[in-house]
């Protein structure tokens, strides 16, 4: 087993009376590429901020590279790249000035990569950041996060304001410059096709906890929508169910993770019909 890069235990966070994280446990080993899925407002950004020690949690702990996130040393900090959902860049600086500023904080800095990305992604290095478009700012935030070749990359909706070409450019950079280096990557996105292309694992955040974390291939291969009369659906054990059953006239359907043996068994029940599901179907039903 690879060493754990992220280790979260019992994380809790409230905003006023509303509990967002409810004793969340989560572990991510080195070298994994994990997609974090959840509805709007599920707490994905809060989770990432608490995980990184940027936001104080009410209870529980997050360790990055074995160190408590809230008191991370400079050496560990330099191993992490983070792209927040809303990039807080210094708007009065130019991209060149911004990166020169950040460069001072990192022992390692990949100038060649930075220059290459600036050219390929067509960002004017000498224009005030305040005059850049939303997409250009997001690209700049990504360049900033990749510039020191981090070992852990955390991306909060990194492509939300990029057009399809920008998204494709970003994915190519992830594939060639990041995943190839065995970087641990955690990203949230609502663009499931991108997630499918990049993530080997998915985690679902729901009701303040990680409710499901598994290999994406395995999830698609084992999950089936089983439909039939309600009383026959009871044959699907609670432990196999991953969604709240949907009721229809005279019956219902539920998503279930079934071993090959169980799948063969369920297929022999004449009253039940079984169909494979896409990641989008999974997202809709698992997060409900």
């Amino acid at each position, binding site marked *: 087993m690879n060493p754990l890069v992220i280790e979260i235990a019992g994380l809790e966070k409230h905003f006023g009376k509303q509990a967002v994280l409810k004793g969340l446990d989560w572990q991510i080993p080195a070298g994994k590429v994990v997609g974090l899925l959840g509805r709007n407002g599920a707490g994905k950004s809060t989770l990432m901020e608490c995980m990184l020690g940027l936001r104080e949690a009410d209870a529980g702990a997050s360790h990055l590279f074995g160190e408590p996130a809230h008191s991370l040393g400079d050496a560990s900090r330099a191993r992490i790249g983070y792209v927040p959902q809303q990039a807080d860049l210094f708007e009065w600086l130019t991209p060149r000035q911004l990166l020169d500023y950040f460069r001072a904080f990192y022992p390692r800095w990949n100038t060649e990569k930075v220059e290459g990305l600036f050219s390929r992604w067509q960002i004017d290095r000498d224009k005030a950041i305040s005059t850049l478009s939303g997409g250009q700012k997001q690209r700049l935030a990504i360049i900033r996060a990749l510039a020191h070749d981090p070992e852990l990359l955390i991306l909060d909706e990194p492509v939300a304001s990029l057009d399809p070409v920008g998204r494709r450019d970003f994915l190519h950079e992830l594939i*060639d410059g990041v*995943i190839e280096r065995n970087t641990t990557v955690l990203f949230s996105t609502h663009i*499931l096709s991108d997630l499918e292309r990049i*993530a*080997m694992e998915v985690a679902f955040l729901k009701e303040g906890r990680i409710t499901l974390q598994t290999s*994406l291939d395995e999830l698609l291969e084992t999950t089936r929508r089983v439909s039939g009369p309600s009383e026959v659906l009871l044959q699907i054990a609670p432990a196999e169910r991953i969604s709240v059953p949907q009721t229809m006239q005279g019956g219902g359907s539920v998503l279930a993770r079934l071993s090959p043996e169980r799948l063969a068994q369920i297929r022999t029940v004449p009253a039940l019909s079984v169909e494979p599901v*896409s990641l989008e179907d999974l997202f809709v039903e698992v997060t409900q």
Partner: protein
Amino acid sequence: MPPSSLTLFSVSPGSPEPLYRQLMDQIRRLVAGGQLAPGDDLPSVRDLAQSLTLNPMTVSKAYGLLEMEGVLQRRRGLGMQVAGAQGKPALDVAARLELLRPILERAALEARQLELDSNFVLELFQQIFEEKT
């Protein structure tokens, strides 16, 4: 292998079929259809991952499983290529079926001469086929 061969491949996210499986099926079809012949090189994992915008691990997984199936073979230092004739049969199903045609045509002729309904003949063939395998 010329770089244009990268255009042979495609995957579509959003389907219930995992991407590595889509890629495996596609390579199997290309081999069966003759677009990829025994001895042909496959694109490197990196080139194909980049061209399809996929995690390289997905491409290696597909290649690795096809190697286990005997569809592809790994050549030391040269990457993956389509397995040769000494491994799995190089002919696709259609071509192999074609080899069977003469004897089936003769059987069909004799069945018609005996005024047998094709359903009975097919049932008998099925029985014989399953007995022998």
